[in-house]
Protein backbone atom coordinates (compact mmCIF):
# COMPACT_ATOMS: atom_id res chain seq x y z
CA UNK A 1 0.00 0.00 0.00
CA UNK A 2 2.79 2.38 0.88
CA UNK A 3 1.48 5.92 0.86
CA UNK A 4 -1.84 5.07 -0.71
CA UNK A 5 -4.34 7.65 0.43
CA UNK A 6 -5.81 6.62 3.75
CA UNK A 7 -8.95 8.38 4.85
CA UNK A 8 -11.04 8.34 8.03
CA UNK A 9 -13.86 6.73 6.10
CA UNK A 10 -11.61 3.78 5.30
CA UNK A 11 -10.89 3.50 9.00
CA UNK A 12 -14.55 3.47 9.96
CA UNK A 13 -15.51 1.15 7.10
CA UNK A 14 -13.10 -1.36 8.59
CA UNK A 15 -14.13 -0.46 12.16
CA UNK A 16 -14.60 -4.13 13.01
CA UNK A 17 -10.83 -4.57 12.64
CA UNK A 18 -9.89 -1.51 14.65
CA UNK A 19 -12.59 -1.54 17.29
CA UNK A 20 -10.74 -3.62 19.87
CA UNK A 21 -7.35 -1.86 19.75
CA UNK A 22 -8.95 1.59 19.51
CA UNK A 23 -11.26 0.98 22.45
CA UNK A 24 -8.47 -0.59 24.45
CA UNK A 25 -6.30 2.49 23.93
CA UNK A 26 -9.24 4.74 24.79
CA UNK A 27 -10.16 2.92 28.00
CA UNK A 28 -6.59 2.50 29.25
CA UNK A 29 -5.80 6.13 28.52
CA UNK A 30 -8.95 7.36 30.26
CA UNK A 31 -7.98 5.38 33.38
CA UNK A 32 -4.39 6.64 33.30
CA UNK A 33 -5.54 10.18 32.52
CA UNK A 34 -7.49 10.23 35.79
CA UNK A 35 -4.69 8.74 37.88
CA UNK A 36 -2.18 10.94 36.10
CA UNK A 37 -3.62 14.00 37.86
CA UNK A 38 -2.09 12.67 41.09
CA UNK A 39 1.08 11.62 39.29
CA UNK A 40 1.58 15.08 37.82
CA UNK A 41 0.56 17.14 40.85
CA UNK A 42 2.65 15.01 43.19
CA UNK A 43 5.60 15.35 40.85
CA UNK A 44 6.14 11.68 40.12
CA UNK A 45 6.01 11.77 36.33
CA UNK A 46 8.63 9.07 35.97
CA UNK A 47 6.70 6.73 38.24
CA UNK A 48 5.06 4.80 35.42
CA UNK A 49 8.32 4.48 33.51
CA UNK A 50 9.93 3.07 36.65
CA UNK A 51 7.04 0.70 37.31
CA UNK A 52 7.18 -0.64 33.73
CA UNK A 53 10.88 -1.34 34.06
CA UNK A 54 10.35 -3.07 37.40
CA UNK A 55 7.64 -5.23 35.82
CA UNK A 56 10.06 -6.05 33.00
CA UNK A 57 12.73 -7.13 35.42
CA UNK A 58 10.16 -9.27 37.24
CA UNK A 59 9.27 -11.11 34.04
CA UNK A 60 12.92 -11.51 33.10
CA UNK A 61 13.74 -12.92 36.55
CA UNK A 62 10.89 -15.41 36.30
CA UNK A 63 12.27 -16.66 32.98
CA UNK A 64 15.76 -16.74 34.41
CA UNK A 65 14.45 -18.81 37.31
CA UNK A 66 12.96 -21.27 34.85
CA UNK A 67 15.93 -21.35 32.48
CA UNK A 68 18.89 -21.30 34.83
CA UNK A 69 17.64 -22.61 38.14
CA UNK A 70 15.02 -25.05 36.95
CA UNK A 71 12.18 -23.36 38.81
CA UNK A 72 8.81 -24.49 37.61
CA UNK A 73 5.13 -23.85 38.00
CA UNK A 74 3.98 -20.80 39.90
CA UNK A 75 7.50 -19.76 40.88
CA UNK A 76 8.51 -19.32 37.28
CA UNK A 77 5.31 -17.55 36.24
CA UNK A 78 6.12 -14.28 34.46
CA UNK A 79 2.86 -12.76 35.65
CA UNK A 80 3.80 -13.47 39.26
CA UNK A 81 7.29 -12.08 38.67
CA UNK A 82 5.88 -8.88 37.20
CA UNK A 83 3.31 -8.53 39.98
CA UNK A 84 5.84 -9.04 42.77
CA UNK A 85 8.39 -6.60 41.39
CA UNK A 86 5.75 -4.03 40.44
CA UNK A 87 4.19 -4.02 43.88
CA UNK A 88 7.61 -4.11 45.54
CA UNK A 89 8.82 -1.13 43.57
CA UNK A 90 5.59 0.75 44.20
CA UNK A 91 5.73 0.03 47.92
CA UNK A 92 9.32 1.25 48.02
CA UNK A 93 8.38 4.51 46.33
CA UNK A 94 5.14 4.98 48.28
CA UNK A 95 6.75 4.26 51.66
CA UNK A 96 8.80 7.41 51.42
CA UNK A 97 6.79 10.16 53.09
CA UNK A 98 9.61 12.60 53.63
CA UNK A 99 8.81 16.27 53.44
CA UNK A 100 10.60 16.99 50.20
CA UNK A 101 9.83 15.26 46.95
CA UNK A 102 13.54 15.09 46.15
CA UNK A 103 14.02 11.75 47.89
CA UNK A 104 11.01 10.18 46.21
CA UNK A 105 12.24 11.48 42.88
CA UNK A 106 15.60 9.83 43.50
CA UNK A 107 13.90 6.57 44.50
CA UNK A 108 11.90 6.55 41.26
CA UNK A 109 15.17 7.02 39.39
CA UNK A 110 16.79 4.14 41.26
CA UNK A 111 13.87 1.81 40.51
CA UNK A 112 13.94 2.78 36.83
CA UNK A 113 17.68 2.25 36.50
CA UNK A 114 17.80 -1.01 38.44
CA UNK A 115 14.84 -2.24 36.40
CA UNK A 116 16.28 -1.44 33.01
CA UNK A 117 19.87 -2.41 33.78
CA UNK A 118 18.69 -5.59 35.49
CA UNK A 119 16.59 -6.49 32.50
CA UNK A 120 19.53 -5.99 30.13
CA UNK A 121 21.81 -8.06 32.35
CA UNK A 122 19.32 -10.87 32.83
CA UNK A 123 18.43 -10.63 29.14
CA UNK A 124 21.81 -12.01 28.08
CA UNK A 125 20.96 -15.26 29.87
CA UNK A 126 17.49 -15.68 28.43
CA UNK A 127 17.80 -14.46 24.85
CA UNK A 128 15.41 -17.02 23.53
CA UNK A 129 12.70 -15.62 25.78
CA UNK A 130 13.53 -12.00 25.06
CA UNK A 131 10.98 -11.69 22.31
CA UNK A 132 8.39 -13.31 24.55
CA UNK A 133 9.15 -10.68 27.16
CA UNK A 134 8.80 -8.01 24.56
CA UNK A 135 5.45 -9.35 23.49
CA UNK A 136 4.30 -10.18 26.99
CA UNK A 137 5.36 -6.99 28.62
CA UNK A 138 5.65 -4.26 26.09
CA UNK A 139 2.54 -5.26 24.24
CA UNK A 140 1.58 -3.87 20.91
CA UNK A 141 -0.97 -1.13 20.69
CA UNK A 142 -1.69 -2.06 17.08
CA UNK A 143 -3.38 -5.36 17.64
CA UNK A 144 -5.05 -6.25 20.90
CA UNK A 145 -6.64 -9.58 21.67
CA UNK A 146 -10.16 -9.71 23.04
CA UNK A 147 -8.84 -11.18 26.28
CA UNK A 148 -6.50 -8.22 26.71
CA UNK A 149 -9.32 -5.81 25.98
CA UNK A 150 -11.39 -7.43 28.71
CA UNK A 151 -8.45 -7.26 31.10
CA UNK A 152 -8.01 -3.54 30.46
CA UNK A 153 -11.75 -2.86 30.72
CA UNK A 154 -12.11 -4.73 34.01
CA UNK A 155 -9.07 -2.99 35.47
CA UNK A 156 -10.33 0.41 34.36
CA UNK A 157 -13.79 -0.22 35.84
CA UNK A 158 -12.33 -1.25 39.18
CA UNK A 159 -9.76 1.54 39.34
CA UNK A 160 -12.17 4.26 38.23
CA UNK A 161 -14.84 3.06 40.68
CA UNK A 162 -12.35 3.28 43.54
CA UNK A 163 -11.33 6.76 42.45
CA UNK A 164 -14.85 8.03 41.90
CA UNK A 165 -15.76 6.88 45.37
CA UNK A 166 -12.66 8.04 47.16
CA UNK A 167 -11.38 11.10 45.34
CA UNK A 168 -11.95 13.35 48.33
CA UNK A 169 -9.85 11.03 50.42
CA UNK A 170 -7.08 10.68 47.83
CA UNK A 171 -7.04 14.43 47.40
CA UNK A 172 -6.72 15.06 51.14
CA UNK A 173 -4.05 12.39 51.58
CA UNK A 174 -2.10 13.75 48.61
CA UNK A 175 -2.28 17.50 49.13
CA UNK A 176 -3.01 17.97 52.84
CA UNK A 177 -1.69 14.82 54.50
CA UNK A 178 -1.16 16.32 57.97
CA UNK A 179 -4.51 18.06 58.01
CA UNK A 180 -6.21 14.87 56.84
CA UNK A 181 -4.52 12.77 59.50
CA UNK A 182 -5.51 15.25 62.22
CA UNK A 183 -9.12 14.98 61.05
CA UNK A 184 -8.89 11.21 61.37
CA UNK A 185 -8.81 10.25 57.69
CA UNK A 186 -7.11 6.89 57.06
CA UNK A 187 -4.19 8.55 55.29
CA UNK A 188 -1.96 5.48 55.14
CA UNK A 189 -4.70 3.29 53.72
CA UNK A 190 -5.56 5.98 51.20
CA UNK A 191 -1.93 6.30 50.13
CA UNK A 192 -1.61 2.54 49.80
CA UNK A 193 -4.80 2.34 47.74
CA UNK A 194 -3.73 5.19 45.50
CA UNK A 195 -0.39 3.55 44.78
CA UNK A 196 -1.86 0.09 44.29
CA UNK A 197 -4.35 1.42 41.73
CA UNK A 198 -1.47 3.23 40.02
CA UNK A 199 0.68 0.11 39.92
CA UNK A 200 -2.24 -1.95 38.63
CA UNK A 201 -3.18 0.55 35.93
CA UNK A 202 0.39 1.06 34.77
CA UNK A 203 1.32 -2.62 34.67
CA UNK A 204 -1.85 -3.72 32.87
CA UNK A 205 -1.56 -0.91 30.33
CA UNK A 206 2.15 -1.58 29.77
CA UNK A 207 1.46 -5.24 29.27
CA UNK A 208 -1.29 -4.65 26.69
CA UNK A 209 -0.29 -1.41 24.95
CA UNK A 210 3.41 -0.98 25.63
CA UNK A 211 5.64 1.22 27.75
CA UNK A 212 5.64 4.37 25.63
CA UNK A 213 1.89 5.02 25.40
CA UNK A 214 1.47 4.03 29.06
CA UNK A 215 4.06 6.54 30.17
CA UNK A 216 2.50 9.18 27.94
CA UNK A 217 -1.07 8.49 29.11
CA UNK A 218 -0.06 8.74 32.75
CA UNK A 219 1.47 12.18 32.31
CA UNK A 220 0.29 14.20 29.31
CA UNK A 221 -3.55 14.19 29.43
CA UNK A 222 -3.51 15.10 33.10
CA UNK A 223 -0.95 17.83 32.48
CA UNK A 224 -3.39 19.45 30.05
CA UNK A 225 -6.29 18.85 32.44
CA UNK A 226 -4.55 20.43 35.42
CA UNK A 227 -3.72 23.46 33.32
CA UNK A 228 -7.35 24.05 32.38
CA UNK A 229 -9.38 22.80 35.32
CA UNK A 230 -10.53 25.16 38.08
CA UNK A 231 -10.47 22.40 40.68
CA UNK A 232 -9.49 18.81 41.32
CA UNK A 233 -12.74 17.01 40.43
CA UNK A 234 -12.87 18.81 37.10
CA UNK A 235 -9.18 18.03 36.56
CA UNK A 236 -9.88 14.34 37.18
CA UNK A 237 -12.78 14.34 34.71
CA UNK A 238 -10.82 16.29 32.10
CA UNK A 239 -7.82 14.02 32.61
CA UNK A 240 -10.00 11.01 31.82
CA UNK A 241 -11.55 12.75 28.83
CA UNK A 242 -8.22 13.93 27.41
CA UNK A 243 -6.80 10.47 27.98
CA UNK A 244 -9.65 8.87 26.08
CA UNK A 245 -9.14 11.36 23.25
CA UNK A 246 -5.40 10.65 23.06
CA UNK A 247 -5.98 6.89 23.02
CA UNK A 248 -8.77 6.88 20.44
CA UNK A 249 -7.72 9.73 18.16
CA UNK A 250 -4.11 8.57 18.45
CA UNK A 251 -5.03 5.24 16.93
CA UNK A 252 -6.84 6.94 14.06
CA UNK A 253 -3.85 9.22 13.48
CA UNK A 254 -1.56 6.18 13.42
CA UNK A 255 -3.80 4.67 10.78
CA UNK A 256 -4.00 7.79 8.63
CA UNK A 257 -0.32 8.66 8.69
CA UNK A 258 1.05 5.12 8.97
CA UNK A 259 3.06 5.73 12.11
CA UNK A 260 3.48 3.42 15.10
CA UNK A 261 0.41 3.50 17.33
CA UNK A 262 2.16 4.27 20.62
CA UNK A 263 3.99 7.18 19.04
CA UNK A 264 0.81 8.57 17.50
CA UNK A 265 -1.08 8.35 20.79
CA UNK A 266 1.77 10.10 22.57
CA UNK A 267 1.86 12.86 19.99
CA UNK A 268 -1.89 13.44 20.20
CA UNK A 269 -1.61 13.72 23.99
CA UNK A 270 1.30 16.14 23.61
CA UNK A 271 -0.79 18.20 21.18
CA UNK A 272 -3.48 18.42 23.88
CA UNK A 273 -0.91 19.76 26.34
CA UNK A 274 0.17 22.38 23.82
CA UNK A 275 -3.45 23.36 23.08
CA UNK A 276 -4.21 23.66 26.80
CA UNK A 277 -1.21 25.92 27.26
CA UNK A 278 -2.26 28.08 24.31
CA UNK A 279 -5.83 28.25 25.60
CA UNK A 280 -4.65 29.41 29.03
CA UNK A 281 -2.43 32.07 27.50
CA UNK A 282 -5.16 33.26 25.15
CA UNK A 283 -7.60 33.48 28.07
CA UNK A 284 -5.15 35.70 29.92
CA UNK A 285 -5.08 38.17 27.06
CA UNK A 286 -8.81 38.04 26.54
CA UNK A 287 -10.40 39.80 29.56
CA UNK A 288 -9.29 43.24 28.47
CA UNK A 289 -11.05 43.01 25.12
CA UNK A 290 -13.59 40.24 25.05
CA UNK A 291 -14.95 39.50 28.48
CA UNK A 292 -16.45 42.88 29.19
CA UNK A 293 -19.03 42.34 26.50
CA UNK A 294 -19.81 38.78 27.53
CA UNK A 295 -20.48 39.84 31.09
CA UNK A 296 -23.55 41.79 30.17
Amino acid at each position, binding site marked *: *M*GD*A*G*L*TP*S*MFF*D*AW*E*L*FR*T*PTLTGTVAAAMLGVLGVYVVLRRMVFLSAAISQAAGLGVALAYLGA*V*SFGLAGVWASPTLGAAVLTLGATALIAADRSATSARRDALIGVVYLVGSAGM*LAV*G*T*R*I*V*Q*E*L*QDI*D*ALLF*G*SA*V*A*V*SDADFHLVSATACAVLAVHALGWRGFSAASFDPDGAQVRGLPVRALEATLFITLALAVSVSTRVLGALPTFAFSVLPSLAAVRLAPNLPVALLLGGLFGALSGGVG*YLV*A*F*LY*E*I*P*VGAAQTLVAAALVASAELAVRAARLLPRQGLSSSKR
Partner: protein
Amino acid sequence: MTRSVLRPTLFLALGAAALAAGPAHATLRVVATLPDLAAIASEVGGDKVQVTALADPAEDPHYVDPKPSLLIPLSRADLLIVNGLELEVGWLPPLQASARNAAIRTGGPGYLDASVGVRLMEVPQTRIDRSQGDIHPGGNPHYMHDPRAAIVVAKAIAARLATLDPPNASFYAERAQAFVREAQAVVDAERARFAALPSAKRRVIGYHRSLTYLEDWLGLTEEATIEPLPGIAPSPGHVAEVLATMRETGARVIVQEEYYRRNTSETLARMARSEMVILHGGTRFAKGERYLDHIRHTAQEIHDALSH
Protein backbone atom coordinates in the same frame (compact mmCIF):
# COMPACT_ATOMS: atom_id res chain seq x y z
CA MET B 1 -3.56 16.02 3.92
CA THR B 2 -3.66 16.29 0.20
CA ARG B 3 -4.25 13.10 -1.64
CA SER B 4 -5.94 11.88 -4.74
CA VAL B 5 -9.60 11.01 -4.49
CA LEU B 6 -9.28 8.24 -6.99
CA ARG B 7 -7.09 5.80 -5.14
CA PRO B 8 -9.08 5.40 -1.95
CA THR B 9 -12.23 5.08 -4.00
CA LEU B 10 -10.65 2.36 -6.05
CA PHE B 11 -9.39 0.72 -2.92
CA LEU B 12 -12.84 0.80 -1.38
CA ALA B 13 -14.43 -0.49 -4.52
CA LEU B 14 -12.05 -3.42 -4.54
CA GLY B 15 -12.72 -3.99 -0.88
CA ALA B 16 -16.46 -3.96 -1.42
CA ALA B 17 -16.07 -6.38 -4.29
CA ALA B 18 -14.01 -8.63 -2.07
CA LEU B 19 -16.64 -8.62 0.64
CA ALA B 20 -19.44 -9.23 -1.81
CA ALA B 21 -17.92 -11.94 -3.92
CA GLY B 22 -15.76 -13.80 -1.43
CA PRO B 23 -12.48 -15.20 -2.72
CA ALA B 24 -13.63 -15.48 -6.33
CA HIS B 25 -12.55 -12.01 -7.38
CA ALA B 26 -10.28 -11.01 -10.21
CA THR B 27 -7.02 -10.72 -8.30
CA LEU B 28 -5.69 -12.64 -5.32
CA ARG B 29 -4.77 -10.56 -2.32
CA VAL B 30 -1.40 -11.52 -0.98
CA VAL B 31 0.28 -10.19 2.16
CA ALA B 32 3.92 -11.00 2.85
CA THR B 33 5.65 -10.23 6.14
CA LEU B 34 8.96 -9.22 4.51
CA PRO B 35 9.50 -7.10 1.39
CA ASP B 36 11.73 -9.83 -0.14
CA LEU B 37 8.86 -12.30 0.04
CA ALA B 38 6.46 -9.68 -1.27
CA ALA B 39 8.73 -8.99 -4.24
CA ILE B 40 8.89 -12.67 -5.17
CA ALA B 41 5.14 -13.09 -4.78
CA SER B 42 4.65 -10.15 -7.08
CA GLU B 43 7.12 -11.60 -9.57
CA VAL B 44 5.30 -14.94 -9.60
CA GLY B 45 1.76 -13.61 -9.45
CA GLY B 46 2.14 -10.82 -11.98
CA ASP B 47 -1.07 -8.89 -12.55
CA LYS B 48 -3.16 -11.68 -11.05
CA VAL B 49 -2.14 -10.72 -7.52
CA GLN B 50 -2.09 -7.62 -5.41
CA VAL B 51 0.76 -7.76 -2.90
CA THR B 52 1.35 -5.92 0.39
CA ALA B 53 4.46 -6.13 2.57
CA LEU B 54 4.07 -5.70 6.33
CA ALA B 55 7.66 -4.82 7.17
CA ASP B 56 9.82 -2.12 5.69
CA PRO B 57 13.24 -3.18 4.36
CA ALA B 58 14.86 -0.70 6.74
CA GLU B 59 13.29 -2.46 9.76
CA ASP B 60 14.90 -5.31 11.67
CA PRO B 61 12.59 -8.22 10.77
CA HIS B 62 12.88 -9.55 14.33
CA TYR B 63 11.34 -6.34 15.69
CA VAL B 64 8.79 -4.78 13.41
CA ASP B 65 6.46 -2.02 14.58
CA PRO B 66 3.42 -2.67 12.42
CA LYS B 67 1.10 0.09 11.22
CA PRO B 68 -2.63 -0.15 11.92
CA SER B 69 -3.51 0.33 8.25
CA LEU B 70 -1.92 -3.06 7.55
CA LEU B 71 -4.82 -4.74 9.31
CA ILE B 72 -7.03 -3.93 6.31
CA PRO B 73 -5.02 -5.89 3.71
CA LEU B 74 -4.51 -8.66 6.28
CA SER B 75 -8.22 -8.91 6.91
CA ARG B 76 -8.90 -9.30 3.19
CA ALA B 77 -5.88 -11.41 2.29
CA ASP B 78 -6.29 -14.70 0.46
CA LEU B 79 -2.69 -15.58 1.20
CA LEU B 80 -0.26 -14.64 3.96
CA ILE B 81 3.39 -15.51 3.28
CA VAL B 82 5.63 -15.62 6.33
CA ASN B 83 9.37 -16.13 6.64
CA GLY B 84 8.90 -18.59 9.53
CA LEU B 85 11.54 -20.04 11.86
CA GLU B 86 10.17 -17.70 14.56
CA LEU B 87 11.53 -14.61 12.80
CA GLU B 88 8.16 -12.86 13.14
CA VAL B 89 7.17 -14.39 16.48
CA GLY B 90 7.52 -11.07 18.29
CA TRP B 91 5.01 -9.14 16.22
CA LEU B 92 2.96 -11.18 13.77
CA PRO B 93 0.67 -13.32 16.01
CA PRO B 94 -1.41 -10.43 17.42
CA LEU B 95 -1.84 -9.01 13.91
CA GLN B 96 -2.96 -12.39 12.61
CA ALA B 97 -5.46 -12.70 15.42
CA SER B 98 -6.79 -9.16 15.02
CA ALA B 99 -7.26 -9.47 11.28
CA ARG B 100 -10.30 -11.71 11.87
CA ASN B 101 -9.49 -13.67 8.73
CA ALA B 102 -9.67 -17.43 9.17
CA ALA B 103 -7.88 -18.15 5.90
CA ILE B 104 -4.55 -16.73 7.06
CA ARG B 105 -4.46 -18.24 10.54
CA THR B 106 -1.41 -20.44 11.05
CA GLY B 107 -2.13 -23.72 9.26
CA GLY B 108 -5.02 -22.20 7.30
CA PRO B 109 -5.40 -22.55 3.51
CA GLY B 110 -4.05 -19.03 3.01
CA TYR B 111 -1.02 -19.39 5.28
CA LEU B 112 2.32 -20.15 3.67
CA ASP B 113 5.47 -20.66 5.69
CA ALA B 114 8.13 -19.91 3.07
CA SER B 115 10.89 -21.68 5.04
CA VAL B 116 9.32 -25.09 4.35
CA GLY B 117 11.48 -26.73 1.69
CA VAL B 118 14.43 -24.38 2.11
CA ARG B 119 17.70 -26.11 2.97
CA LEU B 120 18.06 -24.74 6.49
CA MET B 121 21.31 -23.96 8.28
CA GLU B 122 22.22 -23.81 11.94
CA VAL B 123 19.28 -25.87 13.08
CA PRO B 124 19.96 -26.75 16.73
CA GLN B 125 20.48 -30.47 17.17
CA THR B 126 19.61 -30.49 20.84
CA ARG B 127 17.64 -28.12 22.94
CA ILE B 128 18.84 -29.21 26.35
CA ASP B 129 20.23 -26.01 27.76
CA ARG B 130 17.90 -23.13 27.08
CA SER B 131 20.30 -20.63 28.62
CA GLN B 132 22.48 -21.17 25.53
CA GLY B 133 19.56 -20.23 23.31
CA ASP B 134 19.21 -17.17 21.14
CA ILE B 135 16.58 -15.59 18.93
CA HIS B 136 17.17 -18.23 16.24
CA PRO B 137 15.77 -21.24 18.07
CA GLY B 138 14.35 -22.88 14.94
CA GLY B 139 17.48 -22.53 12.83
CA ASN B 140 18.85 -19.48 11.05
CA PRO B 141 15.86 -17.59 9.58
CA HIS B 142 17.75 -15.16 7.34
CA TYR B 143 17.64 -17.31 4.19
CA MET B 144 16.21 -14.60 1.95
CA HIS B 145 19.71 -13.15 1.49
CA ASP B 146 20.36 -16.26 -0.65
CA PRO B 147 18.77 -16.46 -4.15
CA ARG B 148 19.05 -20.25 -4.03
CA ALA B 149 16.50 -20.17 -1.21
CA ALA B 150 14.45 -17.66 -3.19
CA ILE B 151 14.15 -20.24 -5.97
CA VAL B 152 12.55 -22.70 -3.55
CA VAL B 153 10.28 -19.97 -2.20
CA ALA B 154 9.15 -18.88 -5.67
CA LYS B 155 8.16 -22.42 -6.54
CA ALA B 156 6.26 -22.82 -3.27
CA ILE B 157 4.42 -19.55 -3.85
CA ALA B 158 3.51 -20.60 -7.40
CA ALA B 159 2.15 -23.89 -6.13
CA ARG B 160 0.07 -22.21 -3.46
CA LEU B 161 -1.27 -19.57 -5.84
CA ALA B 162 -2.28 -22.37 -8.17
CA THR B 163 -4.22 -24.05 -5.36
CA LEU B 164 -6.00 -20.83 -4.50
CA ASP B 165 -6.64 -19.86 -8.13
CA PRO B 166 -6.61 -23.06 -10.27
CA PRO B 167 -7.61 -21.40 -13.57
CA ASN B 168 -4.34 -19.47 -13.55
CA ALA B 169 -2.13 -22.33 -12.40
CA SER B 170 -0.07 -22.44 -15.58
CA PHE B 171 0.34 -18.67 -15.55
CA TYR B 172 1.93 -18.85 -12.10
CA ALA B 173 4.07 -21.85 -13.00
CA GLU B 174 5.46 -20.13 -16.08
CA ARG B 175 6.29 -16.95 -14.24
CA ALA B 176 7.95 -18.91 -11.45
CA GLN B 177 9.98 -20.79 -14.04
CA ALA B 178 11.14 -17.52 -15.57
CA PHE B 179 12.15 -16.25 -12.17
CA VAL B 180 14.02 -19.48 -11.40
CA ARG B 181 16.00 -19.25 -14.63
CA GLU B 182 17.03 -15.68 -13.97
CA ALA B 183 17.81 -16.39 -10.34
CA GLN B 184 19.93 -19.39 -11.25
CA ALA B 185 21.93 -17.19 -13.61
CA VAL B 186 22.56 -14.70 -10.80
CA VAL B 187 23.50 -17.51 -8.42
CA ASP B 188 26.10 -18.92 -10.84
CA ALA B 189 27.50 -15.63 -12.08
CA GLU B 190 28.06 -14.14 -8.65
CA ARG B 191 29.48 -17.33 -7.27
CA ALA B 192 32.00 -17.44 -10.07
CA ARG B 193 32.89 -13.79 -9.60
CA PHE B 194 33.57 -14.27 -5.89
CA ALA B 195 35.50 -17.47 -6.51
CA ALA B 196 37.90 -15.41 -8.59
CA LEU B 197 38.89 -13.45 -5.49
CA PRO B 198 41.93 -14.79 -3.62
CA SER B 199 40.74 -16.92 -0.73
CA ALA B 200 42.54 -14.70 1.80
CA LYS B 201 40.19 -11.90 0.80
CA ARG B 202 37.00 -13.87 1.17
CA ARG B 203 36.73 -13.25 4.90
CA VAL B 204 34.14 -11.08 6.53
CA ILE B 205 32.91 -10.00 9.94
CA GLY B 206 29.15 -9.97 10.40
CA TYR B 207 27.05 -8.06 12.87
CA HIS B 208 24.06 -10.32 13.43
CA ARG B 209 24.17 -13.94 12.42
CA SER B 210 22.08 -13.07 9.37
CA LEU B 211 24.65 -13.60 6.59
CA THR B 212 25.07 -17.36 6.96
CA TYR B 213 23.17 -18.27 3.78
CA LEU B 214 24.71 -15.42 1.80
CA GLU B 215 28.23 -16.48 2.80
CA ASP B 216 27.50 -20.10 1.97
CA TRP B 217 26.35 -19.07 -1.50
CA LEU B 218 29.28 -16.73 -2.24
CA GLY B 219 31.95 -18.88 -0.61
CA LEU B 220 32.76 -16.37 2.14
CA THR B 221 34.04 -17.17 5.60
CA GLU B 222 32.55 -15.33 8.55
CA GLU B 223 35.37 -15.01 11.09
CA ALA B 224 33.22 -13.49 13.81
CA THR B 225 29.98 -11.65 14.51
CA ILE B 226 29.85 -8.46 16.51
CA GLU B 227 26.84 -9.77 18.43
CA PRO B 228 28.08 -12.55 20.73
CA LEU B 229 24.81 -14.41 20.20
CA PRO B 230 21.98 -13.46 17.84
CA GLY B 231 19.93 -10.76 19.53
CA ILE B 232 22.48 -9.90 22.22
CA ALA B 233 24.18 -6.53 22.20
CA PRO B 234 27.98 -6.75 22.06
CA SER B 235 29.80 -6.72 25.41
CA PRO B 236 33.23 -5.08 25.75
CA GLY B 237 34.95 -8.44 26.14
CA HIS B 238 33.39 -9.79 23.02
CA VAL B 239 34.31 -6.70 21.00
CA ALA B 240 37.93 -7.17 22.09
CA GLU B 241 37.78 -10.78 20.92
CA VAL B 242 36.38 -9.70 17.56
CA LEU B 243 39.18 -7.19 17.17
CA ALA B 244 41.77 -9.84 17.97
CA THR B 245 40.14 -12.19 15.46
CA MET B 246 40.21 -9.50 12.79
CA ARG B 247 43.92 -8.97 13.36
CA GLU B 248 44.69 -12.68 13.41
CA THR B 249 42.68 -13.70 10.37
CA GLY B 250 43.14 -10.59 8.28
CA ALA B 251 39.37 -10.19 7.85
CA ARG B 252 39.08 -6.61 6.66
CA VAL B 253 35.41 -6.19 5.80
CA ILE B 254 32.52 -5.72 8.23
CA VAL B 255 29.13 -6.48 6.70
CA GLN B 256 25.85 -5.52 8.33
CA GLU B 257 22.28 -4.63 7.38
CA GLU B 258 21.20 -1.01 7.57
CA TYR B 259 19.04 -1.53 10.67
CA TYR B 260 21.83 -2.60 13.02
CA ARG B 261 23.64 -0.09 15.16
CA ARG B 262 26.86 1.14 13.66
CA ASN B 263 28.83 2.53 16.59
CA THR B 264 30.61 -0.70 17.52
CA SER B 265 31.27 -1.61 13.89
CA GLU B 266 32.65 1.84 13.18
CA THR B 267 35.00 1.63 16.13
CA LEU B 268 36.20 -1.79 15.02
CA ALA B 269 36.57 -0.65 11.43
CA ARG B 270 38.71 2.25 12.56
CA MET B 271 40.87 0.18 14.89
CA ALA B 272 41.41 -2.68 12.44
CA ARG B 273 41.58 -0.36 9.40
CA SER B 274 38.80 -2.23 7.71
CA GLU B 275 35.87 -1.43 5.46
CA MET B 276 32.23 -1.38 6.36
CA VAL B 277 29.49 -2.57 4.03
CA ILE B 278 25.99 -1.44 4.95
CA LEU B 279 23.53 -3.67 3.12
CA HIS B 280 19.94 -2.88 2.32
CA GLY B 281 17.76 -4.84 4.74
CA GLY B 282 15.67 -6.13 1.88
CA THR B 283 14.15 -5.40 -1.51
CA ARG B 284 12.83 -1.85 -1.85
CA PHE B 285 9.51 -3.40 -2.81
CA ALA B 286 7.41 -0.29 -2.24
CA LYS B 287 9.65 1.57 -4.70
CA GLY B 288 9.22 -1.12 -7.32
CA GLU B 289 12.64 -2.78 -6.91
CA ARG B 290 12.89 -6.41 -8.03
CA TYR B 291 14.25 -9.05 -5.67
CA LEU B 292 17.07 -10.11 -7.97
CA ASP B 293 18.18 -6.52 -8.50
CA HIS B 294 18.40 -6.16 -4.75
CA ILE B 295 20.46 -9.34 -4.56
CA ARG B 296 22.81 -8.20 -7.34
CA HIS B 297 23.24 -4.90 -5.56
CA THR B 298 24.07 -6.70 -2.30
CA ALA B 299 26.65 -8.93 -3.99
CA GLN B 300 28.17 -5.95 -5.77
CA GLU B 301 28.62 -3.99 -2.54
CA ILE B 302 30.37 -6.86 -0.82
CA HIS B 303 32.48 -7.65 -3.85
CA ASP B 304 33.61 -4.03 -4.11
CA ALA B 305 34.70 -3.98 -0.49
CA LEU B 306 36.50 -7.31 -0.71
CA SER B 307 38.44 -6.42 -3.85
CA HIS B 308 40.02 -3.28 -2.37
